[in-house]
């Protein structure tokens, strides 16, 4: 009873802390955006990936740029976009009145001054770009989430070194909290969705769940952002899920997909591509669902804050002052929702992955196949 109370208190403290962080971030970011030229607030730029870390109002940290180019082949590494442009081996174009113009000298310096260079793709002066391997914001926060995941679970794993600890009850909030997550994923997601062969998928499901969860929660931290609000990241995760699951697909699973038993030949030919498309679409939806949900939260918060400035511009500062608390309150509300969403979508991704794994490894019994065939033959 005491432990439960303590846990609830801890949870409350964490929730309050997160809410406080969100609130504080909003308070800080408000004057920053207001200070931007013309009160311009670009929610999309903030939500999208970028080659910089935004620590407004304290400034912006540009991230290293790494380019792979060909003709001639080579890898160029710069400490920042600024240094890449100032080295004059890469250039940016400014589009105005329908024609593009490469920025040089004063114009380039002015663009850098206004951080415009961060939103444009640089081009190599010599040769053509093959791959932009620059470190981006979402990569940094994804790495951070991965490091947090590693730190937490490698620490947790040390608790099970001694035999007495392996069989005794879990102690302390740390072990109880994260062991709870592990047991939940294993017993509530993997086992019921996959069936008897669930054990081989538990490591992937756990990794996906914890990594996505920490990525999502990172979206609630001021100045950080959720790596999962980037389609590239979620696509990668979905591809991993696809590979891990389909690699273990049973013979019956593939046969049912591409050569459905008990169906006339033309229907078989028709079903195979449909099944293939549905398989890919399922995994694509996995990526899109996570990405859209995480991105929309961020967009929504920024839009709610943006309303204040829009009203400021449209109706004047007096009305904006009255609207501001409303906007903040909504933002706080959405922040709470985002905490729930962070957990829910980590869960949904893991659950659906587990369901797809379950389909792939399910044993089709002979009698079952016959039962399916029987009505078709009769018809």
């Amino acid at each position, binding site marked *: 009873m005491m432990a439960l109370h303590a846990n609830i208190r801890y949870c409350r403290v964490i929730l309050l802390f997160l809410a406080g962080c969100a609130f504080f971030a909003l308070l800080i970011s408000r004057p920053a955006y207001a200070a931007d030229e013309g009160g311009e607030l670009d929610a*999309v730029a903030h939500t999208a990936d970028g080659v910089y870390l935004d620590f407004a109002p304290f400034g912006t940290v540009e991230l290293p740029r790494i380019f792979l180019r060909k003709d001639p082949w080579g890898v160029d590494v710069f400490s920042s976009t600024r240094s890449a442009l100032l080295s004059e081996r890469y250039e940016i174009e400014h589009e105005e009145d329908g024609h593009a113009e490469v920025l040089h000298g004063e114009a380039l310096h002015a663009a850098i001054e206004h951080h415009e260079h961060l939103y444009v793709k640089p081009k190599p002066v010599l040769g053509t770009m093959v*791959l*932009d*391997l620059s470190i981006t914001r979402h*990569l940094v926060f994804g790495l951070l989430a991965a490091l947090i995941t590693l730190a937490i679970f490698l620490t947790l794993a040390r608790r099970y070194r001694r035999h007495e600890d392996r069989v005794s009850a879990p102690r302390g909030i740390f072990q109880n909290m994260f062991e709870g997550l592990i047991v939940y994923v294993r017993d509530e997601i993997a086992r019921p969705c996959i069936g008897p062969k669930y054990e081989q998928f538990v490591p992937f499901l756990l990794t996906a769940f914890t990594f996505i969860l920490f990525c999502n929660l990172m979206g609630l931290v001021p100045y950080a952002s959720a790596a999962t609000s980037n*389609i590239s990241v979620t696509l990668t995760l979905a591809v991993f899920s696809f590979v891990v699951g389909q690699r273990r697909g049973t013979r019956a699973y593939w046969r049912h997909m591409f050569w459905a038993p008990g169906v006339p030949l033309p229907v078989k030919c028709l079903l195979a591509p449909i099944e293939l498309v549905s398989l890919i679409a399922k995994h694509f939806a996995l990526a899109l669902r996570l990405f859209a949900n995480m991105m929309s939260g961020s967009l929504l918060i920024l839009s709610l804050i943006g309303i204040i400035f829009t009203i400021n511009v449209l109706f004047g500062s007096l009305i904006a002052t009255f609207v501001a608390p409303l906007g903040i309150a909504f933002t706080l509300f959405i922040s709470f929702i985002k905490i729930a969403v962070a957990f829910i979508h980590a869960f949904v991704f893991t659950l659906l992955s587990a369901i797809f794994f379950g389909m792939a490894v399910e044993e089709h019994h002979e009698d079952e196949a016959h039962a399916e065939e029987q009505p078709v033959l009769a018809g």
Partner: protein
Amino acid sequence: MDIILAQSLLEPNAGLIFYKVVVFALLLFILRRFAWKPIVSALSEREETIDTSIKKAERALEEARKTGEKNEEARRAAEESARRVMQEARAAAEQVRSEELEKTRARIRQMQEQAQAEIEREKQRALDELRDEVAGLAIQTAEHILEETLDADRQRKMVDRFIEQLPRN
């Protein structure tokens, strides 16, 4: 610029995908090797331990219950036999008592009868003696009265007849 930005939300970034594949693969590998394996195995080990402990406890409880039942049964049997022994003892005692009583009663009766017989015999003897005495006295008296008119035998016969005619008591 806005168009570029809007695109950047949906446009997959090949570089980022490359990094992410590396990062996630590494994460998966390290966690699987150093975190999930020890943790999950420890969890199942603990579950097994708990399972066996519970089963053991259940078995012990069952055994204890059985032992208790056995004890109860033994106690009941002992009580039953004790009661039977006591009952038997009581019955035996009762029998002995009644037999003793009967015997005593019989002896008393016998003694009474003996005494009666003795008394009867004594009475008879006394009567006989008395009769002899009376006969002697009568003869003497008659001798005195009648002097020697009658011989002794006739006199005796006459007195005997006389005595015979006397009432018995």
